């Protein structure tokens, strides 16, 4: 599954985000939610984008499918290449073809993400029939099969339920079933388990993992939870304040974080063998994305920061050359050595 040479940045990727810049208007000013973000998603892999809330990772996900808030959000630079086709330049009709069928999305909160007045079976049927000329009853049978596939008991009856009649875990499974209905090449899962109880989280993740294994797709997993990443993703991209700070194979990044933010995140992650009190927190708060500080955005919170960091934005670079990890830090060497 994880073919090494495919993970090399720059190799022909299934989905390639290049220098993406996304702006969102807010009451306080324009936020640059993604500021020159580049990442590659290859076939058959799970890429996790990790970061704190507000770092821009959800806007990144929405930018890919052109689902930014209509009046307030827009892409102001960069490209989103899907199989070489720039989606930022695609016509609305072409985007519609791709949405759902080639790139599907799972949203964070299935209670608000599913239509409250439509039966869940119908919501899946609608997805199928939007892209394939199948009869309603055929589409409905597929919907029931999909519900079965994602582990919903008594799927035939459940298909006739309204979302509010289902538990949170069930709803998220419906979301997953709907997203995978057309066997998309890319599945974007935006915090798919955040709204769920911890025990249910595990079940849903398991389902997602199983489905992704069954299907031939790649997954772009958006999460703030490094714990989820560890068990699930092939590669990880760490996002901070609208920029990717580190990107690479999960094992590499976990084993040897090159960026002080990654290191901080990992250090603050609870582990089974944690000694009480050892848990560290990254001091300070993330900067405003309306008028971010010059230079490295993490510098104000960074223990490694020098004067250079406050002046010059660090370039994203491969370091070490053989690790398959890119990092944007002037002091990656010191962090990596640490």
């Amino acid at each position, binding site marked *: 599954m994880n073919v090494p040479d495919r993970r090399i940045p720059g190799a022909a990727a299934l989905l390639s985000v290049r220098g993406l810049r996304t702006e969102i208007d807010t009451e306080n000013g324009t936020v640059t939610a993604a500021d020159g973000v580049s990442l590659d998603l290859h076939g058959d892999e799970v890429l996790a984008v990790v970061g704190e809330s507000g770092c821009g990772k959800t806007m990144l996900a929405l930018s890919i499918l052109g689902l930014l808030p209509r*009046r307030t959000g827009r892409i102001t630079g960069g490209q989103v290449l899907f199989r070489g086709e720039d989606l930022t330049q695609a016509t*609305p009709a072409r985007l*519609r073809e791709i*949405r759902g069928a080639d790139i599907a*999305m799972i949203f964070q909160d299935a209670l608000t*993400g599913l239509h409250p007045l439509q039966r869940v079976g119908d919501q899946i049927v609608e997805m199928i029939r939007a892209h394939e000329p199948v009869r309603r009853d055929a589409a409905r049978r597929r919907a029931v099969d999909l519900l079965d596939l994602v582990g919903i008991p008594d799927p035939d009856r459940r298909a006739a339920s309204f979302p509010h009649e289902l538990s949170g875990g069930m709803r998220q499974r419906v979301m997953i079933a709907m997203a995978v209905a057309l066997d998309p090449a890319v599945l974007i899962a935006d915090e798919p388990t955040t709204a769920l109880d911890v025990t249910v989280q595990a079940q849903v993740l398991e389902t997602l993992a199983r489905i992704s294994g069954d299907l031939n797709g790649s997954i772009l997993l958006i999460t703030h939870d490094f714990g989820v990443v560890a068990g699930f993703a092939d590669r990880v991209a760490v996002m901070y304040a609208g920029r990717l700070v580190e990107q690479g194979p999960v094992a590499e990044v976990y084993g040897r974080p090159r960026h002080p933010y990654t290191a901080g995140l990992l250090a603050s992650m609870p582990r089974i063998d944690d000694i009480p009190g050892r848990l560290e927190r990254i001091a300070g708060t993330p900067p405003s994305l309306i008028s971010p500080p010059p230079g490295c955005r993490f510098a104000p919170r960074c223990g490694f920061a020098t004067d250079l960091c406050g002046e010059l934005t660090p370039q994203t670079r491969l370091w070490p050359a053989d690790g398959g990890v890119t990092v944007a830090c002037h002091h990656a060497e010191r962090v990596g050595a640490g």
Partner: protein
Amino acid sequence: MIGYALRRLAVTLPVLVVISFGTFWAAGEISSPTAQLTLNPRISPEAKQDYVELLGLDRPLHVQYGKWLGNFVTGDFGTSLVRNGQDVWPFVERALANTLLLVAAAVSLSLLIGLAVGVVSAIRRGSLWDYGSVTVSFLGVSIPVFWLGLMLQLFFGLYLANWLGVGPPLLPTAGIYSPGQQGFDLLDRVRHLVLPTLALSLQLVAVYSRYMRASMLEVMSADYIRTARSKGLRESRVVVRHGMRSALVPVTTQVAIDIGQLVGGLIVTERVFQYPGMGLLFLDALEGGDYTILLPTVMIAAVVVFALNLVADLLYGVLDPRVRLGRDRRVARNV
């Protein structure tokens, strides 16, 4: 649902009783039935006493009311004092039919236009169209109906015909049939319905479009709309099947509740366009001091308004499966 309807009815009925008693009392104040008798100097005291006993006017007010209410709910509307003993019901029946037609026409038209305007305003928020519709809505709720009615009459009856250089008015300005018309004529009837419907509709269009716009704006920023778009649905389907479907829930109930607020405009409209409905009957009864017609007219209006409020509540449950009637409605407001 049936249990809920019955519970609501149980709450509504006492209110109706209070309203009907108030109406009964007020109608007596406005047009004292005894005044009809005492003012005729030639009616002998014995004859007056006979009338008084016949009408039960010598009894306490609550006894009179009870008698009247009993007759009213059993469909016995009695006879009209002012109309010389003619049965009341045929007048009320005819007026009610005409009014229901007018209201149905106006509400349908207003929904059609108002909802469409509201939806377009919402999805083109901040556009010229949106600002234009806000302005028109503002005018719509501020323009007095009688003035609007008169302007419609002048425009369609006079100016337009003059400007086009054609003789007869484009649309009849009053009544429900052309003078001299005998029997039923659908086209003639519809032509006479146009202007009163328009006069009654402007305000409704304004209100409905505002409701719909607000509701759509709320709905269109909902997560499930983003989900719908992510499914690759056509935008029209996203707007209509996902957006409007939800936005209509609060609007529909609001429309049903608002029917009560139509009453004032209806009376004025019927007067201006000489439309023989409940409003005109009410005015005639009021001016003629005919409490025997005034009472059922007001009561029927009250019953209809209350019935529609009940329908609005029940409709909420039908339209939004999340609402368990009798519990909290606010859940559904945050669609």
